[in-house]
């Protein structure tokens, strides 16, 4: 196989984590909202925790993105 083609395939494969990050972000925000509707008074206090979870989950997807970029542009 051509090295260029392999590079493109690799970059495509490296964007698969985006699916997992999407599911994870949906779970985080969905669960936060369902909890917040059950007990709205406690919602504000847990917002930083929710954002922390959001940031950590998003990082997984961003790692995939960074790897895709490294594969595409540095090899």
């Amino acid at each position, binding site marked *: 196989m051509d090295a260029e083609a392999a590079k493109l395939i690799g970059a495509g494969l490296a964007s698969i984590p985006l699916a997992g990050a999407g599911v994870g972000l949906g779970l985080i925000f969905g669960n936060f909202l369902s909890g917040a509707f059950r007990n709205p008074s406690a919602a504000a206090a847990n917002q930083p925790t929710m954002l922390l979870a959001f940031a950590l989950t998003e990082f997984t997807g961003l*790692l995939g993105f*960074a790897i895709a*970029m*490294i594969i595409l*542009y*540095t*090899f």
Partner: protein
Amino acid sequence: MSIFAIATSVAETAAAHGDEAASAGLPQLDPSSWPSQLFWLAVIFGSLYALMHTRFLPAIGGAIEERRDRIADDLDKASEFKHQAEEAEGAYNQALADAKAKAQGIAAETRGEVDKDIAEMQADTDAALEKQVAAAEARITAMKVDAAAKVHDAAAETARAVVEILLDEAPTSEAAEKAVSNVSNAS
């Protein structure tokens, strides 16, 4: 620091490969621009931090603090005024109650005096009336006695006259009187 290490080594190999590799690579992974970025970041971020720390944040914090103090002061003052108003209201109510009590006292006193006057006047009047009634009664009694005596005399006279006509003999006035007395006493 895996990503960082990978990125650094990758960038270094890319830079080592020459210009065509560097131009194809990510500008972020070109180490030749790093010192300049780090230097200017340090200068600009450092001066921003110094400005914030020494000037802006104390000014804003001071303004907020001052406002908070002022509001707290004003609230304190307001509650003090409220307290004073409540005290004034209490004093007013007290004065009102006092005045009411005094007025009631005066009214009761006056009523008592008037009652006493009325009672005195009534007693005087009663006594005067009683005296008059007693005098009248005495007069009546005297008149009664007088009338009774006159009736007695008239009866005795009449009896003497009746006996004189019937017997042609006039009894003594003492006998007639005695007979009348007997009759009137028996009846």
